[in-house]
């Protein structure tokens, strides 16, 4: 174990700071640009000479855009809600069904278990694009086009999550639940009272990954929706960029608001997430 701060450490710290700077600079520029008045957007200053907060109410449709002389009529708040709502829905369903299926694959004994699990693993290899086209057709047949259900349901069942939680549950000693079973507890009781609490780190990691992924999902909502009342933030941002792409200051204000919840979630949960990801990955 080293106990001293050597010149080499100093160099390492400096290099790390420089790399960190290159990672942070685009974000700094984004925040800076979001506070620029529209007269200043062509300047190359990182910090505007006359910072203004007015871009945010414009994007949120509370004020007129000075360059247009009217409101943008974006449904930005609505898109926010849609993104958060679908991401929460997908995360909740996915963690719940994955945990239950993982229990069936790791604790119950039944005839076709390993074969069905192999089938799950096999589909993990198939690219999402192969599945998307028929999945779209199925959603059309089910009449779920342009509905929240159509956004949430197809994404709510994950083979990856099942796989990850199964690995977690296999790591829990069997003696714990066998004792309970012998004492006459039902599988449902064992699942709720013994296995779930012990699987919590894995479930939290899965939940964060799923939440971050669904909050940003783009392809599926893009092909599923043509009603801008239902757009999640990703598709809404694209629409915004297509119409008002030249208004960099407004786009950047929107981007800041788009990214802020992600950073919040990540900074709060980063410890769980890094641990869980590494555990799942190393075991898998």
């Amino acid at each position: 174990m080293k106990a001293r701060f050597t010149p080499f450490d100093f160099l390492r710290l400096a290099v790390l700071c420089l790399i960190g700077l290159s990672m942070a600079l685009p974000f700094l520029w984004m925040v800076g640009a979001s506070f620029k008045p529209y007269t200043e957007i062509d300047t190359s200053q990182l910090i505007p000479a006359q910072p203004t907060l007015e871009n945010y109410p414009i994007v949120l449709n509370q004020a007129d855009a000075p360059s247009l002389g009217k409101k943008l009529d974006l449904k930005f708040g609505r898109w926010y809600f849609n993104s958060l709502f679908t991401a929460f829905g997908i995360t909740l369903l996915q963690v719940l069904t994955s945990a239950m299926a993982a229990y069936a694959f790791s604790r119950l004994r039944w005839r076709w278990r390993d074969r069905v699990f192999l089938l799950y693993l096999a589909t993990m290899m198939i690219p999402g694009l192969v599945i998307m086209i028929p999945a779209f057709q199925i959603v059309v047949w089910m009449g779920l086009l342009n509905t929240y259900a159509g956004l949430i349901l197809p994404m709510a069942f994950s083979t990856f999550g099942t796989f990850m939680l199964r690995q977690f549950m296999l790591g829990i000693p069997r003696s714990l639940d066998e004792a309970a079973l012998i004492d006459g507890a039902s599988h449902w009781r064992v699942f709720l009272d013994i296995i779930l609490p012990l699987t919590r780190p894995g479930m939290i990691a899965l939940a964060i990954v799923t939440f971050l992924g669904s909050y940003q999902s783009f392809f599926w909502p893009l092909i599923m929706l043509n009603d801008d009342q239902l757009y999640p933030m990703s598709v809404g941002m694209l629409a915004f960029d297509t119409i008002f792409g030249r208004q960099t200051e407004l786009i950047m204000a929107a981007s800041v608001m788009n990214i802020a919840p992600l950073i919040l979630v990540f900074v709060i949960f980063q410890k769980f997430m890094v641990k869980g990801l590494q555990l799942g990955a190393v075991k898998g």
Partner: protein
Amino acid sequence: MKSRAKTFWEVCLFLGPNLGGFVVFMAFPVLMSFALAFTNWSLKPAVGLEFVGLRNFGDLLLFRPLDGSAGGPLPLAYLGAGLVCCLGVLGVLWAQISSWRGLRLGGALLATLGAALVLAGAATQAPAGGQGLVLAGLVALLTGVLHMRLEPGQDETRPWGPGPALLPPLLIAAGAAALWAMHGAMFATYAPRDARFWQYLYNTLFLMIGIPFSVLGSLLLAMMLNERFALGPAWGRTAGAGLCLLCGAVSCVLLWRAGMPNWAVIGALFWLIAALGFAFGVVAFRTLFYLPSFTSGVALMILWKALYNPRVGPINAVLEQVATFFNLPYEAPNWLGSVALAKPALVFMGVWATIGGMNMLLYLAALTNIPAELTEAAKVDGASPWNRLRHVIWPQLAPTTFFISVMSIIGGLQGGFDQARVMTAGGPAGSTTTLSYYIYLLAFQNLDLGYAAAISWVLFTIILLATLINWRFGREVEQ
């Protein structure tokens, strides 16, 4: 023993919800997609559903004669030459792994071939094709030079002697020469039935050249983050952080007074990061490096689109200042709007976004799992840092590297949709359209679901082959 019926109901209870969703939204779509690939399924109401056999795949992969005649054996010969090239490449990998005799001569041949390709690419200067030739040449050059090392256990008396390892480079050379000779005649009389598919396949592969940089960069970052800083007691940390903040404030004020507000802000940010580093150690850097990859979505791409903006974007502003400073001629590069620069610009963005992401975390986990005795023993035996890295750490990381490269290649082959849709609309002149974006265009703009499904299965086959090759050779390297 419990009764069978009870077990059945329990399985239904636990597995039911997930299995139901799995069947409806995954298993069944896979089967259906496979069936669709053999039909002309379309969302246009005027088109009736028909079974068309292999026609979709033929339209995608085959050539057609330009004059409308039946066609001759030339396309087959052309395809054969291409296959010979591919076989040669596989042979090179195989020779390297099983240490065939004659590696040096084979390597020299390969390196020469690579140099010739680079020169040819530079000479033709075709914007798209030239890039590809230069790239392939560089790969051949690099592989050749690596190939020229003498593996231990080889016949050291005749290091340049011919051996079976000469065969694969000869195959590549023969194949390439045949392709070159037939190229003119081939494309004077034949055209690919779907020329766009080949262009987009090339684009997809080109955009994947960021992967090795990203993986190596992740490894470097992970190694820098692996050792904690010995910062001493808590007051030492606080003092260091405070000192950094003070430096930041002073430099910020000084630079601002000197009329360089941008440098003032950048300097302040640098010292702030350093202060965070002192306060929270490696965790601060890990979080910061991970920042681009968990925000990697549409918002980040829109941000980069603004950064690359040729007129008001900051990247060009910096370039212009650098050019004026050194008195160089300056012409604003139109990053995303030019055929030659669009792909490299996207590759750069991709490396920036993924370098500190999942791969870095995986490497960090793997580095922590290396037993300390191993590196200590090597140190005691007097191994240099490079040798410790090469012969102790790198082999221990092999499973992780293998996993990361397989996942990156699979992701890369399927990737490119988001950036094509958000940043470039696949342009200019289709130069950033990848296969995934092509599938999207065909399926949801042309409404040709059958044809799109056929492409997705061709893509799946390519991914499967890449994974198999990776698996075969990756496992060998691990041992």
